[in-house]
């Protein structure tokens, strides 16, 4: 079968505005949208620019707006997308070229929540910090984030104002806030309770719909608000 592929192209050295271009691409039902993009780049127009690395839904580099929703191009199959497919860059960030965006605002928010275990104390047995299975389960869901930015760039609050910390950074703060081994909980909660933190969430569930890992992001956000209350931060 042939698929009609519409891609929103933008070349900063030639175009003033982005524009749509159409490609006819041969495809099997089990091909992924990423395969179609590869076909265009390898056989039709080598200037097409996009990110991808592992191509198997793990590295999180090929999040795109496909048929109106944020998805990973390497996970979305032609048989699910249909014979007409539109592909755009994820929204809310500066488009550098075609489907490639400047991820820096996303990484800045991510870095700010200190996404690493903070614990300077020596473990009781001198070797490892033990944790009960129940404590481990508390961050099972949020530890599966692959940082593809599909959630944050699906968020209408983030579209309007990139100073909002965004769902991905909240998910990654949650992963350490509820970790019983971590000692920087207070500091992370301060960032979360900032006027640009969790309180800007409007609970629209766009992030939950967009997440390719099916992380219950809104639940994580609610758990962070509850932790702010428990910590006695106002």
């Amino acid at each position: 079968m042939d698929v009609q592929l519409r891609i929103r192209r933008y070349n900063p050295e030639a175009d003033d505005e982005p524009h749509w271009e159409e490609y006819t691409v041969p495809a099997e039902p089990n091909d992924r949208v990423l395969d179609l993009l590869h076909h265009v780049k390898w056989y039709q127009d080598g200037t097409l620019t996009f990110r991808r690395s592992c191509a198997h839904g793990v590295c999180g580099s090929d999040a795109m707006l496909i048929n109106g929703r944020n998805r990973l191009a390497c996970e979305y199959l032609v048989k699910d997308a249909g014979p007409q497919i539109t592909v755009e860059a994820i929204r809310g960030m500066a488009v550098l070229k075609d489907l490639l965006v400047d991820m820096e605002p996303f990484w800045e928010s991510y870095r700010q929540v200190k996404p690493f275990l903070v614990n300077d104390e020596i473990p009781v047995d001198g070797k490892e910090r033990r944790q009960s299975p129940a404590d481990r389960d508390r961050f099972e869901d949020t530890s599966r984030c692959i940082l593809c930015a599909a959630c944050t760039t699906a968020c209408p609050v983030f579209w309007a104002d990139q100073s909002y910390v965004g769902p991905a950074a909240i998910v990654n703060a949650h992963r350490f806030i509820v970790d019983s081994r971590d000692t920087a909980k207070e500091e992370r909660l301060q960032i979360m309770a900032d006027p640009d933190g969790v309180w800007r969430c409007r609970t629209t569930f766009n992030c939950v719909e967009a997440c390719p890992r099916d992380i219950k992001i809104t639940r994580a956000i609610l758990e962070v608000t509850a932790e702010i209350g428990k910590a006695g931060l106002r």
Partner: protein
Amino acid sequence: MTTTTRRPRTIYTNPSRAARPKPEASGRERFWWYFMRLSGLALVFLALGHMFIMHVLVELTGGEIDFAFVQSRWGTPFWRIYDFLLLVLAFVHGANGARIVIGDYVANRTARNFLIGSLLVVSGIWLILGMAVIVFFDPNTAPPVGPFS
């Protein structure tokens, strides 16, 4: 390598979180966050009840919304409290929603403060007028006489 400088497609309203002042917990935003959710829930019932009475029940019983109708309803404290709650919750919910939208879309600090300030003044005056009508309404007065009566 060419060094063409072109403006990015998206102008970030705030390019750097790192350059911002230290994050601070905000009790105010926390209050509004919970207020919006709780008042929203209450308004589902209050507003639907209001719609049902004013636009369905009145039609079905062949009644008319006139001074006598208001007189009979606001003769009981229950409907006064009902309408008072509806007015205050809907108004504050709406005004705070508008404040948040302004905060999202107006990046210029002066313009934002001006808009939010104006919103506060205008909605404050309207809210007080509405509350005054409900609180001071006297069901024993005669219907008003004027060009619209």
